[in-house]
């Protein structure tokens, strides 16, 4: 194993000699995973890249990723300098890259919330109080999601005084908010936690049969998605670059571009806005 790792190191170093030359340092790279529609990802976000490029006067490139953890890795490794993170992945990323800053969030992200949804057979109905869902089957969204996993798990532990694995008959991770809706609607799971925006846009698109699945509880609000930028962009793209990026994001008002996220506008944000998310993540043991 040791010799193998050495071999890799050697290969990597040799390769880096060949490819090092053509890697242009002047390309500003970003990544984003929208919470709802992931189709035509590159086509849509290349529009955003074009916009940023015009505003910033540097070449801007979009890199598609598959998961929040991949986005965090790319950010940490400086393969992207700017990222549209979920609440939790943003916290993870800023912990790993000292000096990085949250610079903007979606207008809706200041008071984001999760819905708990249930299959009609459970007989549960919308209530103000935390619903009695002990011993039901339950599905989260993806493992790294704030609205589909972190916050729901926190409220479950707070109200049921148990870890989800003990509180529920079966716990699943659907991997995606749309999947959560589909799986609860078809009865695969009895209850699920879902991003409220995804639910509402699916409802508006007529994808939900409200006779089969309905919202039974909504969580208190918390901060979620945000743009986070690395500290070293100032050194690579000139002093004041962070502010320029922030201004470009805040001024992004073309509905066409905002639809990709989807958010109505971007507003200012700073690291300490996300302290609640970090506290919760520590409390349920997702970060140390």
């Amino acid at each position: 194993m040791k010799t193998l790792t050495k071999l890799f190191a050697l290969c990597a170093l040799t390769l880096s000699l060949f490819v090092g030359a053509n890697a242009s340092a002047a390309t500003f790279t970003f990544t984003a995973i929208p919470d709802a529609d992931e189709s035509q990802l590159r086509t849509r976000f290349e529009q955003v890249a074009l916009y940023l490029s015009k505003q910033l006067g540097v070449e801007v490139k979009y890199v598609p990723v598959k998961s929040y953890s991949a986005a965090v890795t790319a950010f940490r490794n400086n393969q992207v300098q700017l990222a549209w993170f979920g609440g939790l992945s943003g916290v993870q990323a800023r912990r790993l890259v000292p000096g990085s800053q949250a610079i903007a969030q979606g207008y809706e992200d200041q008071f984001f919330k999760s819905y708990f949804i249930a299959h009609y057979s459970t007989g549960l109905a919308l209530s103000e109080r935390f619903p009695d869902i002990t011993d039901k089957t339950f599905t989260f969204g993806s493992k790294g999601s704030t609205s589909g996993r972190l916050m729901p798990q926190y409220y479950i532990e707070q109200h049921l005084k148990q870890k989800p694995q003990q509180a529920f008959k079966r716990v699943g991770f659907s991997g995606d908010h749309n999947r959560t809706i589909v799986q609860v609607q078809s009865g695969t799971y009895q209850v699920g936690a879902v991003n409220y925006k995804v639910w509402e846009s699916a409802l508006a698109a007529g994808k939900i049969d409200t006779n089969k699945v309905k919202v039974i509880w909504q969580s208190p609000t918390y901060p979620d998605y945000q743009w986070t930028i690395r500290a070293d962009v100032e050194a690579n793209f000139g002093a004041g670059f962070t502010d320029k990026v922030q201004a470009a994001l805040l001024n992004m008002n073309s509905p066409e571009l905002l639809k990709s996220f989807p958010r109505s506008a971007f507003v200012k944000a700073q690291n300490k806005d996300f302290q609640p998310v970090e506290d919760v993540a520590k409390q349920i043991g997702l970060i140390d």
Partner: protein
Amino acid sequence: MSQPKQLQPIPSLKNPQYALGYWQKVTLSIWLIALIILPFADIEIVNFDPFLELTRMANGLVTPDFFATEYLWQAIMQTVNFAIIGVCLGLVLGAPLALIYQHPLISSCCAFLRAIHEIFWALLFLQVFGLSPLTGILAISIPFAATFARVFHDIINQSSDSPLESIDSRADMISRFTYGKIAQVMPQLMSYTRYRFECALRSSAVLGFIGMPTLGFYMETAFRQGNYSEGAALLMIFIALIGTIRYWCPPKLLGVYLVIACVTLIDIPHIDSSLLVRFITHDILPPAIANAATLAEVQWSSLTAWFSALFLEQAVPGAIATITLALLALAATHFISLSAHMMASKHLWPAPLTWLGRFSLLIGRSVPEYILAFIFLMLLGPSMLPAIIALAIHNGCVIAYLVVKQSNAIAPQEMQISRLNQFNYHIMPTIYPSMMALMFYRFEIIVRETAVFGILGIMTLGFYIDSNFSEIRYSNALILIICTALLNVAIDIISRRLLKFEQTSQASC
């Protein structure tokens, strides 16, 4: 559960003096083990109304949308590129190892490397190389090299020594080896390499699930987000790609393709060697060691607490689920292999029907298990059952595909018996040992592939590994990956000890 028995002649039931044959014992024990663990496995069927979603899926299947995917041509190219470069690099690394494979250190190292699924290799390399093509290529070529080493070694070992005798004894060692050994097994080596290329295409697509820019990238998104028309189109393209390999990639053109692949590969971004250093010296170390400045400061108690928690809460339950799933899948695979072989055998059906059978084998072995499990999850609910069925269909079809090739080559004697009897009493007994040998080779792969279902949420070791990657706990992930590999190696050793059948090298992928 007694289907396999109907397909075999069972003299023992009629004649009490006849003991059970070796293969009957093996077959019975597979099913016995499966029956014993069945009550402990989670195979509950939960579903109320999957039909809304199933209708959507069926709708997508009949209205495939080939234009919904962006950069489709690029995705196809990259799928092929990763596979070609991965296999070639695997050959370059693996073929020389085959010559020294008899050394226990080499063979156990290879078994270890082979035991780690491409997805995990990719997740590890992702931390160092990022979303660079290098991640995908290395993730394919390392386990492939280890497999090539083993199979090539087996093939060379089984070759006859007689050609050596006709070579002048004064000839040098290299010539003797090349003309006496390699020359006679060359066709086998070639055909195995061709087969591995098909496997590499599948692996390449599967790597898309975690972010490589191959067909799997778009396929996973399409299915996960319910864009079934797009998903169906991508599946069809992928099946067509695999089904037509021999037309678009004849062995002679492999070199040409390799050159094209290297030229058209997406750019390899700058590799930062400090990332590798950080990964090895910090990321993969246990938190107690990584956070301590000197060795003296390491808190050994917290290190042991960390390890025992990881081991007891994740490794052990994960390993139990992995083994349960694999053993049940093995029995189910046996059933599917037998039925699928029957379906496509030319000894039973007229030619047009066997084409149909072989077409279903193509679909069964080309559709990634992930997608199969995804569909069965909608149908049967979130237990282990969808994974068992997906593994059985996929592996059963691979085995049946290889067995049909062999059994169709058998020329039975002209006898006055019905086709069915001829199939049952002549073809099956002839082909059964090699089918079983293939199945035990596949068992190793079944255990590896349980990893993929972890990502779908079935609590195998793969589930815990995936969770640790998403929580950015690489040290935990690495320990669990090592546990998975050791489990695989242990299973391999045990199954070899228990079943001392001669090493036929109809290996599989």
